[in-house]
């Protein structure tokens, strides 16, 4: 599904990813771990096409198509979703309006007619129930005045609405207390399917107790230095990252 080969990425002329390769097949859950500054978030940003990150060499394909030549919105509409580490606030734009615009853009991209208002509201009700999303939050402007936990929950809600083929969760566990973490992880688990893949970017092993990965990769200085199964995460928890350097 996702093939990354020898990827080099720079920001403001500084090289962060230095020849990273990764292969994700349908249905798989990959965890990317590593210390601060190892390039975890840069990887997420490069996949979704953040304009501040420059791909200097290497390739990224998604379902066989070259991702690097597509605009960020095209990548999203191809079915790639990023749960942001720091979701932004958009004052005055209601969640309903925001999600309806996003869903209809996706449908337009896939040559489907727009969803009717009543179908949309029914669909939204379903997904809210699935991820335990409060009416209070969906009636407000996008992330405006949300707590850290509410923002993360809102990301998972959006993920449920957009039904991506590949979801990238960037430090979704950061800033969450244990209850919020459980709710968010439950949401992610409910959305898993044999066709859908997930990349979890995390600093700690904690999240992986709730969302069990098929593979764990350790990122250091812009490269994957070690790959393994979920046991690797436990080993990291015990030994830290230093022994891998």
């Amino acid at each position, binding site marked *: 599904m996702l093939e990354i080969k020898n990827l080099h990425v720079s920001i403001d002329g500084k090289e962060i990813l230095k020849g990273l390769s990764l292969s994700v097949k349908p249905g798989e859950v990959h965890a990317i771990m590593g210390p601060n500054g190892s390039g975890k978030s840069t990887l997420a940003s490069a996949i979704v*096409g953040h*304009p501040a990150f420059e791909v200097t060499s290497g390739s990224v394909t998604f379902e066989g198509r070259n991702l690097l030549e597509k605009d*960020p*919105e095209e990548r*999203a509409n191809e079915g790639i979703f990023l749960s942001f580490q720091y979701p932004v606030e958009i*004052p*005055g*734009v209601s969640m309903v309006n*925001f999600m309806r615009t996003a869903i209809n*853009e996706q449908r337009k991209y896939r040559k489907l007619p727009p969803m009717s208002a009543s179908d949309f509201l029914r669909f939204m009700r379903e997904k809210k129930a699935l991820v335990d999303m409060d009416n209070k939050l969906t009636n407000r402007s996008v992330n405006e005045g949300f707590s850290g936990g509410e923002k993360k929950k809102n990301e998972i809600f959006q993920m449920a609405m957009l039904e991506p083929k590949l979801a990238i969760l960037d430090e979704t566990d950061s800033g969450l207390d244990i209850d919020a973490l459980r709710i968010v992880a439950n949401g992610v688990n409910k959305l898993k399917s044999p066709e859908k893949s997930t990349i979890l970017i995390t600093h700690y092993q904690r999240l992986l107790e709730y969302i069990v990965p098929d593979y764990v990769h350790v990122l250091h200085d812009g490269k994957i230095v070690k790959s393994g199964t979920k046991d690797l995460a436990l080993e990291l928890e015990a030994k830290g990252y230093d022994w891998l350097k």
Partner: protein
Amino acid sequence: MSDAIIHEVTQSEYKYGFTTDIETEVIPPGLNEDIVRLISAKKNEPEWMLEFRLKAFRQWQKMKMPDWAHLNIPEIDYQSISYYAAPKKKSISSLDEVDPEILATFEKLGIPLEEQKILSGIAVDAVMDSVSVKTTFKETLAEKGIIFCSFSEAVQEHPDLVKKYLGTVVPSGDNFFAALNSAVFSDGSFVYIPKGVRCPMELSTYFRINTQNTGQFERTLIIADDESYVSYLEGCTAPQRDENQLHAAVVEIIALEHAEVKYSTVQNWYPGDKEGNGGVYNFVTKRGICKGEGSHISWTQVETGSAITWKYPSCILKGDNSTAEFYSVAVTNHFQQADTGTKMIHLGKNTGSRIISKGISAGLSQNSYRGLVKVGPNAENARNFSQCDSMLLGDKCGAHTFPYMEINNESAIVEHEATTSKISEDQIFYCNQRGISTEDAIGLIVNGYAKEVMDKLPMEFAVEAQKLLQISLEGSVG
């Protein structure tokens, strides 16, 4: 990166630019007493109307164009303008008699008269150039005693009302443009709501400029008698032109005891091309008076068009316990200039006013809010709240706020808040990542920013206005 996107914005062109090919009767360019007399004669006006025009013309001759606004106005040769143009076909009683070209034009603008009539229950007084082409729903309104007709017709049919109120809110010598309008106004709308009547539908007028080199000088007079209510909509889209077109309208509103008038505008005159050539000059005087006790006037405007906008819809709060509101969204892009705002003049006791202004500037444009809050010595317990927000897209545009306050009564409470913001690249990218293009993201964010004002628009206008905001700003990010 930002530069590239800003450059992209400036590629978007006016989407409603076209002209209609219909025969027009135009009098020769130039302005003198004979022309004023000719206009009056063409309209078969009574003597008092001609006198009103001549008095205004004489005042205008002694006046100078105002230069205090934050605007760069090219010199206007008032003698090169033709002051009267009328579509030749007149006196129409059914839609079948309307020039098919005109009907097609309205359809292009998205306001098919027939459909509007059936679907939205709006009475449409469509003004093409200077003379009313079509008035609908008149009979339904007449049953309630409501008068909604062209200004010319009102002069003929309801001279007492026109005579009693014309020029009482905006005197003919009020300012340069109001004086010009008073001398040469061509047509416009007249509304009278009788005592105790609630107008059952939104009254609406669409104005367009159509004949080259023809200034458009509408005159609107709205009178809401005791305990009446009316909501009035005015919207305009003008065809694309190379030459600048002058537009100087006057709107007067009179609200008597406990009457309520809502006046909403969506203004989308041709703003000129992306190099700053052409575009409409819009110099408008709009003023209402809350004359009676407990009366209420609200102005809501969405301004996206015109090369130059000079416009301050104002209220005089004369009646005790009267209230007034001003809600405005003004968008400027490319080389557009806007100097707009309001004046709230508190004269009566316990009067209240509220001002919400949202400016959005992009490209190389200049967008100014100018507002006056004045509290007279007898206006005990006057209350005002003003909020003026500016949003900048790009770093080559300007946003300015000029609030003035003249408070002559110690019991007054006057508040002013102002903010300036930018659309962040993070917000745009967040939308992009959800599959929303940059242009749509800007539309979404700008509409969110302007929501407090957009929500005040009647339903019929809301959708159109949202689209307009987006079209006006296509591609601009900072």
